[in-house]
């Protein structure tokens, strides 16, 4: 690995993640005003919304890198798809955990089968299947191709999920994409808090994906050495 890439991934990325995360925490807990109707619980949104956007971005990258893998057979593309799917799963799981924690005091229930919530569970299940296929199927080329196709097909759920609030008019609030003049963040500091939290989580996502992708590369090297040892 070149020295410049080592610097970026080992020093700049973790430190910028740490600093931006610290700024996000200060803004979420100390600077952002409490929302008038929801009170302090609304502050869950700053991470909940951004975790969701990062997860969607991660799954879109799974689709992009899977297309790259199917076209070229690049191992790097395959590793990136795998790493993005794993970190995307972690973030989606956290969306499904933080959402009900917000919903309980606001809606009075932990869960409801609202279109957006249901589509999020479907997305989670698709990429859980993707990761299980990869884990149980091993490194067989046919399995990797099946997984790539699943990674591409699964991403088709993302636009449906984003538009679900508009298409089916569920109870999930539309914070970012709404025609309602009363919707959205009223105080500019709320907007800044959402932005800084978004930057912090984007950096965290990138750092985790880079760590996981490098680990997968080492895993492949070890597997190749085992194979070579068995042959000789």
């Amino acid at each position: 690995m070149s020295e410049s890439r080592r610097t970026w991934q080992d020093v700049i990325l973790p430190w910028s993640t740490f600093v931006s995360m610290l700024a996000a925490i200060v803004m979420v807990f100390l600077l952002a005003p409490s929302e008038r109707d929801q009170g302090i619980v609304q502050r869950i949104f700053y991470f909940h919304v951004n975790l969701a956007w990062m997860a969607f971005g991660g799954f879109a990258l799974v689709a992009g890198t899977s297309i790259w893998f199917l076209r070229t057979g690049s191992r790097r593309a395959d590793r990136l798809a795998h790493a993005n799917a794993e970190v995307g799963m972690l973030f989606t799981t956290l969306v499904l955990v933080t959402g009900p924690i917000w919903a309980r005091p606001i809606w009075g229930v932990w869960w409801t089968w609202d279109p957006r919530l249901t589509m999020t569970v479907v997305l989670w299940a698709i990429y859980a299947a993707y990761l299980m296929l990869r884990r149980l199927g091993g490194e067989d080329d046919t399995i990797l191709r099946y997984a790539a196709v699943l990674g591409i097909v699964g991403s088709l759920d993302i636009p449906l999920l984003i538009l679900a609030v508009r298409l089916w008019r569920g109870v999930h609030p539309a914070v970012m994409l709404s025609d309602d003049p009363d919707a959205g963040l009223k105080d500019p500091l709320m907007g800044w808090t959402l932005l800084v939290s978004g930057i912090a989580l984007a950096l965290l996502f990138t750092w985790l994906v880079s760590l996981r992708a490098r680990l997968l590369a080492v895993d492949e090297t070890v597997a190749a050495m085992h194979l070579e040892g068995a042959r000789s």
Partner: protein
Amino acid sequence: MKGLYYLAAAYTAVWIAIFGYVMSIGRRARKLERELEELRK
């Protein structure tokens, strides 16, 4: 006041999950490093 518990629960869950994931990556990296060392011997 009750809202504070929900807020704390949400952010605690986020941090435990992320910390756990980073720890699991570290554990897997150490295991692979050991394996690589043995194969190189």
